[in-house]
């Protein structure tokens, strides 16, 4: 293993064709998987926070069901992180605390507020996944077939959660408009920064 290092000026022969395109695709995948993992991790913590407060209420079982799906999403992205050698976002500890605080905080305002939080977050995530699907299709639909399947399925799951939230009287939450706006802006900011660091 301790291969004798080369003499000075050893020529490395560039064997990769289309290395520029490959580098671009690599950056895109890196960004997408990092931010998706951060998102699912955050969602996992939000539902954990909500369940901590609302476990014994009427929406408890529903929240548990949605939480289990988010856990599955997070595990999928963790597998992708290892498979594609992606760097996870450095803000994970922050999202850990912030997600739990958001979930518990909205749940303390009542179960309608918790549902409103779900609606807001899933709305942002749905748009976000749609954008990613567009980016992946633009880059190389063939190469990213597997990832596209995963993102599409997860987008459908998140939209389902969004609809469940509305079904469970999210709109009856106090200050529904203001609450959802603030949460949406927060989520968009989190997405923006997790894509970068």
């Amino acid at each position: 293993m301790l291969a004798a290092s080369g003499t000075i000026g050893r020529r490395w022969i560039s064997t990769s064709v289309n290395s520029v395109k490959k580098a671009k695709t690599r950056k895109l995948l890196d960004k997408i998987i990092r931010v998706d993992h951060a998102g699912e991790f955050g969602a996992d913590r939000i539902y954990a926070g909500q369940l901590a407060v609302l476990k014994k209420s009427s929406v408890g079982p529903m929240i548990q069901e949605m939480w289990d799906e988010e856990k599955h999403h997070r595990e999928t992205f963790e597998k992708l992180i290892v498979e594609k050698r992606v760097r996870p976002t450095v803000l994970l500890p922050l999202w850990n605390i912030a997600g739990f605080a958001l979930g518990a905080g909205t749940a303390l305002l009542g179960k309608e507020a918790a549902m409103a939080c779900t609606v807001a977050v899933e709305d942002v995530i749905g748009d976000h996944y749609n954008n990613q699907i567009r980016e992946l299709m633009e880059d190389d639909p063939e190469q990213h077939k597997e990832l596209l399947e995963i993102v599409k399925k997860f987008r459908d799951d998140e939209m389902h959660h969004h609809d469940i939230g509305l079904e469970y009287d999210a709109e009856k939450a106090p200050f529904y408009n203001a609450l959802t706006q603030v949460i949406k802006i927060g989520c968009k900011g989190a997405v923006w920064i997790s894509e970068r660091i």
Partner: protein
Amino acid sequence: VRRRQARFISVTAAKFTAEQRSEGQSSENSAKEDAQEAQYEHDIRQRILSASLVYVQELGWTQKALEAGAKDEGLPPIAHGMFPRGGAELVHYFYSKSNEELAEILSADVKEAEAKGEKLKTQTFIQNAIETRLRMIFPYMDIWPQAMAIQALPQNAVDSWTNTLNLMDEIWYYAGDRSTDFNWYTKRMTLFAIYKSTEVYMLQDKSADKEDTWAFLNRRLKDLENIAAAKKSCEQNSDVFKEAVKGFAVMGRNVLGFNSRDR
């Protein structure tokens, strides 16, 4: 001026392939043409960089080495204009290519160990990996301090940081790390500290075949193991610790009078 030179070079280079270009490009083709041109420019840059490394010993990590390399490749010396940051690009090229080579070596080692059914000891693996990587610098040892200084400049900070982080990631990945949480960072940062200190030590090491450096590296890795073991024993003692903290909290409240009914 440098950017204009770079643009001039790439346009001139593109003209060399004029016969390969079709006339009357449609919009669908022009995106493909752009991609091809970008790839062509990239390939020329790689050739020049590769050819320039021979001149680094005498000319340093500088624009002059790039000029000499360009001349070797049959390109006009002005081709150094393709590299606006001059010597820094040469350092970045050398660093990233060395990282790639290390990744190949480590991957082969891991496969070999798997085939034989052996389990690699992490500390030994990491030590060998760092040693292999540092040995790649040997041919450039005299001129390496200049490279380190170039990497420390703020305009090169992003590139050098990315290179080093990639290197740490390669080593840990092949050593078996599969973490997906914040441990990803703590592991790589600790290894970064070890690698950097060993690299600096190596610069002033005058022993035969740098054996003092490898001993230094071994001691640093042992330190890391000791810290991990200490952390483990701390966790096992955490109940005692928690009780102690609670005790101090109660004492504090007593002193401040919060536990008294007469407050």
